[in-house]
């Protein structure tokens, strides 16, 4: 979906007037990107991520009148809300409060450094948000056993087949499956970094 800043501005004005079609348009445009790239990458638990997504749009629609149209996409506003909600989710869990602080701190850096993209098109092309996720993934992979990291990279990031991966490791496909399974489990304990 391609649209310009002017089109987005019109959409926001309609939202501020309570236009439900505009609300539907906003959701359909940004929900998936927000869910996969922003929420799920920081809170990789589907049910919790869905709750955060719902709350993000609820808050956005409740406060849309306070939103000031600037020369940047509304996506960044939604993203801000979503990350705050992710942090809140972690804060509710005693063991993950530190993680919440890390996410918040990392995002603060992201805010200070600023995002190069301003338009919704940039956002939806996913390059920037993907880069952010990749940084987090790489940080987590660095903490893993190098072979685990290699297995995850080959299989998920490079999209290589089991056979290729097994050959690379010099083990059977079955053994590689086990290795990959263990790598996935180990990753959970280190992510988000």
């Amino acid at each position, binding site marked *: 979906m391609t649209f310009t800043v002017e089109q987005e501005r019109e959409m926001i004005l309609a939202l501020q007037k309570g236009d439900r079609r505009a609300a539907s348009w906003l959701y359909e445009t940004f929900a998936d990107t927000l869910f*996969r790239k922003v929420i799920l990458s920081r809170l990789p*638990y589907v049910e919790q*991520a869905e709750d955060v997504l719902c709350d993000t749009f609820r808050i956005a629609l409740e406060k849309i009148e306070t939103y000031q149209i600037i020369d940047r996409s509304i996506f960044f506003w939604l993203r801000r809300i979503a990350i705050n909600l992710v942090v809140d989710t972690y804060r509710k869990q005693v063991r993950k409060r530190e993680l919440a602080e890390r996410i918040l701190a990392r995002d603060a850096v992201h805010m200070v450094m600023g995002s190069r993209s301003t338009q919704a098109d940039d956002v939806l092309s996913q390059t920037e948000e993907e880069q952010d996720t990749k940084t987090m993934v790489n940080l987590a992979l660095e903490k893993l056993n190098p072979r685990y990291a290699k297995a995850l990279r080959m299989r*998920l990031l490079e999209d290589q087949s089991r056979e290729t991966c097994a050959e690379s490791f010099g083990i059977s496909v079955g053994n590689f499956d086990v290795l990959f399974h263990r790598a996935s489990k180990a990753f959970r304990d280190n992510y988000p970094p």
Partner: protein
Amino acid sequence: MTTSEEQQAQHLAHWIDGDRSTLPPEDVAVAIWALRPDFAPKPRVSIADVLSVVRSGPFSSDDNVLYEEDSNDDFVSSVFAQVEAGSRNSVSLEDVLSRVQRGPFSSVEIQSSEQDVDAGLFHGVSERSLGETLDDSKHLPKNVLQDAPSSSVSANNNRWWRTPWLAGGIATALVLFVLLPSGFESPVSEDSIFAPKPQLKESLFVEEIDVVSQKPSSSSKSSSKSSSKSSSKSNSSPIVEAESLQVSNEDIQPGNEEMEASSLLELLTDKGVNEEDIGLDEDFEPVGKTVLPQKKGELNRSTMGGMDSVQVETKPASMTPPVSRSSVVETEVKQDEVAEVAKDAPTSMKGIASEELMSSAPSRELDVPIEEVMKYESVEDAEEMEGAVDDLDESDFVKQELEPSVVTVSTDADIQTTSKESIVSNRVRSKRKGGLLKGKQSASKPLSSASQDVGSIVESKTFATQSESSYQLPLVVSVEQQNAIQTLRTAEEILVLCDAARPTKSLEILWLSSMHLSTAVSIEVLKVSAEYDHGDVRYLKRNWLRLAMLLRRSGDLTLAEFYESQAATLP
């Protein structure tokens, strides 16, 4: 590698390859959602769901409206009007100033600074407001006006010495001043939780062997205290007395602190302290019977009756005089007697102060073989162990609690003669002794540095955990192969035996080889475990733990923590 794990791994592999009828398990899904969010299912939230929960703003439905600003409801308007009126700030500057009791704005000062006001320093402040302020001083608390001297200066308002808590504090201090020097102790019943509990001294060394005399006048204050304690104990548990040989710490002369209780006992006998003197009965029997038979080189230590006690395991023909179960060895030796005895101690025992052991002393040889080295063991421990050992067969290895105290009572040379296996195979009490063991651990803390000195043999707690897991794992390698592994000395030779197609066996080989290789080579070998991480996870974890322990010993803490974390991620 278990069957269920293989099945889960296979299921995950098929899921990634496209068979996504069901969601992957949560423990592996995190990696997939994070690395491949496009694999994640679409959110099950629709815009209708979102709108249904919107409570305010332009999208709030009429049903959900709780309050609207343009409400025409008179009742609601009036309620909010009242709230607004009530919350309006009604505090004026005069109110504030009237309450100021100190500082330049205190009412007294304002009185005294009328001239300044006249001089026009406060332009913009109306005379009326200041006049009101001064009048308001009538409403000030009485004590403020009374305390304020006519000559002004508000600092005197702070009369802290008149406060009632000060008197209470002084009274308490006086009481403490009188009672503390007199050593006053309020009576505490034995049942009370505040009753004094037996505790190990912070550093329990050999020099702290207490010999409690039965001669009341000859002992020092501390030894008489411990004597009375032990005698009270003796009423309840004669075994406790029988196995306690205590030498007051103060009674030991410098330089002879390391004397072992067994030798001391011998020497006492040599010096003419006969059985009557030390209270030996005719019907004695070796303590060895009461103490659980333990393996070569096994040493234990614990607290007994609030005193650090040494338990001597008597072996026929090797330890004289035998200490009987019933005969209570509670000999209080005069300081000069102990000094004399210590003077005559064998040279091999001199100068092996525990301090030296702590600071990596060079190897010294003890005449006493490791089997005969005293055991630090309370009788309570022994009794409990007696019960526990019945439940254990030879192959039943339970959690190892190898305490650094082993180091303090033996020398490097002794330890070197003790095979690692003998330490590993120490059978110790079952987990129901956890509380006591915990106490032992805390007591042995000061000795940890000594354990590092002889680290090649004495294992840390980590090793204990690791060794525990090792014995619970079935052996994959045959006895012949094990023997073959023991002959190998280089990492290359060992790695030849490993095979990626048999990862679990390879892990076992690496682990076994690390048991007899030097630390550096063991580390090198164990690191190769990473290449067999598709093997049985338990074997892998064991290798990581051992590697971490070896790294920690060699001082590479960062890497040790890394491998510990690797082990922690494994089930």
